[in-house]
Each structure stands twice: as C-alpha cells, then as structure tokens.
C-alpha cells in the first residue's frame, strides 16, 4: 500500500537533475521576474521558445510537463475565452454571427457525448477538451439550417486576441518553470535547498534547520498517515460504514469516525517519535553534522550565467523597447 508519491518528482537524467536545488530555485525566481518584465506577446513567444529549448536540452519529455499543466488547464482556457470575449479594443479581427438553434444545440450535445466517450479511452484528455471547446465555436458559427432561437455577434478584436495570448502564454511559462523544479528535484533536496537559502534568516530568529527537519519528517510521515487512513477506512467499511454515499449528516459522522482514531494514533506516534529522536541524542537547536550536503558544480555556474542573460535581456526589453 505504498502508492502515494509526494510531489511530482520523476527520476531521470539530464543537466536539470544534476543542478543544485538552490541554483534551480534562485534561477526560477529570476526567470519569473524576467517573464513579468516582458512587454508584449511577441517577447513572450521568444521566452516560450527559449523555455522549450531548455526542456529539450535537459531531456525532459514535453509530455510530462504538459501533464504538470493539467490542474490549471481549465483556468488557461477560461482565461483565454474571457479575454477574447471581454477585451474590445483595437481592430476587428473576425466578426461572426453565432446561431443557437435546434440543430446546433443537437450538434453540441452530440459533440459532448462523443467527447466524453473519447475521454474514457484516450490519454490526451486536455487536447480533446480543447477540440471540444473549439468545436462548439464552429458548430454555433456554421450550423444555420433551422430558424434561430437566438443569435448574437461574436467579435474578436486585435487587442483582445493579443491580451489573451499574452496572459495565457505568461501563465504557461510560469507554470512550466515551477513544474521543471518539482519534476527534477526530490522533495528532500527541495527542503534542503530551502533550508540553505533561508539560513541567513537566523539573525531574525528563524531557525531554518529545525524548519527543514519538520518538513522532512512531514514528508516521511505523509505516506504512513495515508496508509493508516486507508486501513481505518477499510476497518470502518467492514463494519458497514460507507464513505462514498449517504446524506451529509451520515457523511460527517463517517468523517468523524475516521478522524478520531487518526488523531489518537497521531498523538501516540508523535510521542514515540519524540522519544526515539531524543534517545538518539537529538537536542533541538544543537549543532549537528549532515549526511546530505549540497555542492555547486560547473553546471550551476552555466545555469546562473544563462539566467542572468535572460534577466538582462528582459530588462533591456523593458527599458529600451
């Protein structure tokens, strides 16, 4: 029962895996700032192109990055549609009449059914959704065989198109950047990188070592606690509890029946863990050596140079262009 994977880390090779986590974090912050400095959609396209090159150079499969985009895919599409529909400045790019009638509604329903069926047997769910959305546009535009219930003008303006592309591409780049980080860095390395970067905060009383220890213990126990939740649910289910159905009140009851034992077990667990740590000479705040250490290599230097070039480029774009 160890199916839970924390984070999105996928083992692999390529230079992005060999980078120090600190390099990746700092570079990504700078690259994000750079992206926000860019003025128009054409600059963003260039940045996007550079991003794709980096991915290819790092031998990261684009498919995996696209998968990482999944959670925000809907957001991207709706942002795009809203921008196009609401931004009404600049020249008119296209002006079409949308027909809502018996046939077009029928066609949309049919398209919906086909889409849902395809989604079940296909891996490219996002692409299918995109095709479905675009399909709706064409259905309402071209199916005019029966009298309309309602029709309206759908006008796309140049600025609207540009703005929507701008917002979407910018979001795409930002998400891709963070996906690269989580895809190529183990959660433990992330924690350690964070610890090292936050170390200067010791002066204002923030202990980054303890912070990192807490995070790594959490990482360690998340799978265990999930397994436990599953076991308790199975145990409750074998006594007739049903977690998927029932009225809200019943559901609440079942959630409580899950949470109470979990809290009790967690309480015992934390006591025992603290005993185990103390018996192995752990003293909070005490200096300790580390088995895992971070080291910079020449690849990190190249990466910093690349980042700085991008950053300088973005500043030039902001100031000069």
């Amino acid at each position: 029962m160890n199916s839970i994977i924390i984070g999105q880390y996928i083992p692999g090779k390529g230079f992005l895996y060999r980078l120090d986590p600190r390099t990746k974090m700092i570079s990504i912050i700078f690259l994000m700032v750079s992206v926000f400095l860019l003025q128009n959609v054409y600059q963003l396209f260039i940045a996007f192109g550079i991003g794709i090159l980096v991915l290819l150079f790092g031998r990261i499969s684009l498919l995996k990055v696209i998968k990482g985009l999944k959670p925000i895919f809907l957001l991207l599409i709706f942002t795009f549609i809203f921008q196009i529909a609401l931004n009404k400045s600049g020249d008119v790019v296209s002006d079409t009449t949308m027909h809502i009638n018996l046939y077009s509604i029928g066609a949309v329903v049919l398209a919906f059914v086909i889409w849902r069926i395809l989604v079940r047997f296909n891996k490219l769910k996002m692409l299918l959704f995109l095709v479905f959305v675009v399909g709706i546009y064409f259905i309402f535009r071209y199916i005019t065989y029966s009298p309309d219930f309602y029709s309206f003008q759908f006008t796309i303006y140049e600025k609207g198109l540009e703005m929507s592309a701008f917002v979407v591409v910018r979001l795409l780049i930002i998400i891709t950047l963070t996906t690269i980080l989580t895809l190529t860095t183990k959660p433990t390395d992330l924690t350690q990188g964070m610890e090292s970067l936050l170390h200067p905060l010791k002066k204002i009383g923030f202990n980054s070592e303890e912070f990192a220890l807490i995070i790594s213990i959490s990482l360690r126990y998340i799978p265990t606690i999930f397994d436990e939740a599953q076991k308790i649910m199975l145990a409750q289910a074998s006594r007739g509890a049903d977690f998927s159905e029932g009225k809200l009140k019943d559901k609440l009851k079942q959630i409580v029946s899950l949470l109470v034992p979990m809290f009790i077990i967690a309480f015992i667990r934390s006591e025992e863990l603290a005993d185990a740590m103390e018996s192995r000479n752990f003293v909070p705040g005490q200096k300790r050596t580390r088995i895992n250490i971070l080291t910079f290599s020449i690849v990190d230097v190249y990466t910093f140079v690349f980042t700085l070039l991008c950053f300088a480029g973005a500043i030039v774009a902001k100031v000069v262009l």
Partner: protein
Amino acid sequence: MSIISVQDVSFAYNDDHESLKNISFSIEKGEWIAILGHNGSGKSTLAKAMVGLIEPQVGEIFIDSVKLNEETSYDLRKKVGIVFQNPDNQFVGVTVRDDIAFGMENLSIPREEMLERIQFYADKVEMGAYLDKQASNLSGGQKQRVAIAGILAMRSDILIFDEATSMLDPYTRNDILEYMKSLNKEGFTVIMITHDVNEAIQADRIMIMNQGRIIAFDKTEEILKNQKLFIENHLELPIALEIALKIDKSEYRDKIWEYALKK
C-alpha cells in the same frame, strides 16, 4: 563494576499511580537479559528510565558507574541504544541512509566517517543494498533492522529492545532474535523486553515484572523451574511447560518438563 545498576527506583507518571516501585537490580557487561511481563507491567517505563527519557522521582541509576541525571544523560545515551516496538514511529530519516545517519548527525560525527559507518552497519543488518529506499517501501522487519544499524552506528554497547519484535510476523521475529543473539556473542550487552515467554527463555537471565515491581530476576533455568511464576504473573506458559501440564499423570508431567529444561 556492573554496567547498569538500578538502585531503589520508583516512578509515577501521575500522582495516583506508581508505574515503577522500588526497582533494584544490576546487569553485567556482555549479559543477555530478558525483561518479561504482561501488558502494563512497567517494562517500557523501566526502559525509558534507563535511557534517561524519564527521570525517576526516587532512586538512582548508574550506567558504567556514572549516575544518570540531566547533565550526564546526553553522554550516557551514547552508550545505551534503544529499539522501540513500532517500526514506523522511530524511522526519522526519509531514506535508510538518512535514518542510520540521524543519531550520528546529532553527535556531530564528520560526514566521511558517517558514510563509512553507514555502509558497514547497513551491511551488518543486511540492508546495505537498500540505502536509498524510503521508509514506506520497507517491511516492518527491515525498518527494525535499520533501527538496529542506527544505534550500532552510534557505537552504543548496551542495546535495549523494547518489544522490538512484537509487531513483526513470526518469521521476521526470529530474524531479529538471531541478530540479538549474534550481537550478544560479539560482546554487546543486550536487554530484551518482551511479553513472549518463548522469546525470553533465549536470554541468560530473566526478570519478571508485574505491576511495577520485580517479581523475580534469576538465571533462565531457575526461572523455568518455578512454574507458578508464569501463572501468577499472567504470562503465557513456555510451550514445553504447557504440553507438560496438559498431561494428567503427574509422574510423566514432571519428566517431560525436566526433559524440556535439559534441552
């Protein structure tokens, strides 16, 4: 001098109930001791007192002739390693390597030295090939072996096992017992806490606890001679004794028992 000497120790978690009552005993270097008692008899409390996790209200504990108290507990803990019951609640690191390192990191041992010891002790408990594995991918027995490597790497020479096998399947349980046996042969002082009589009889000496008191502490053969001890202290009987008692005719019963003891 005894390696552990406990003198008239009493301890209560809260006022109304004493979990340890006037405990006194001593253990010699290189011995294998079993502490036997049913649930709630105070075994874990005694173990915690011996590693300084709790401080008895009354009495004194000496480890290697040094009195255990707040000032000395840090140094004395280096000598006494403890493996607890629940494999999951003592695995601190994310990977096997991290976990074996945890105690050494706390002792500020240089990294190169740690890497050497990790490999050595991981090999010793046959976990050398699993250094990069995460806790959630290990079995209970493997986690307990990692815990053993962790305290060995700290160079503890007194090893306490607090029901370290009770959550394992019988096969793995034997495995861990074999480790205890061979570590004891190497010279480690082993204190094995258990409620399982058949496990306890492997030790040199057995201490029987009940309601926070030591009922008996003697050589294993002597303890086994006294059948009443097991019954009165709500312990399971050793299998041989159980068989012997099932036999009605007393002449045979005693003979079988004597035979089992000799074995």
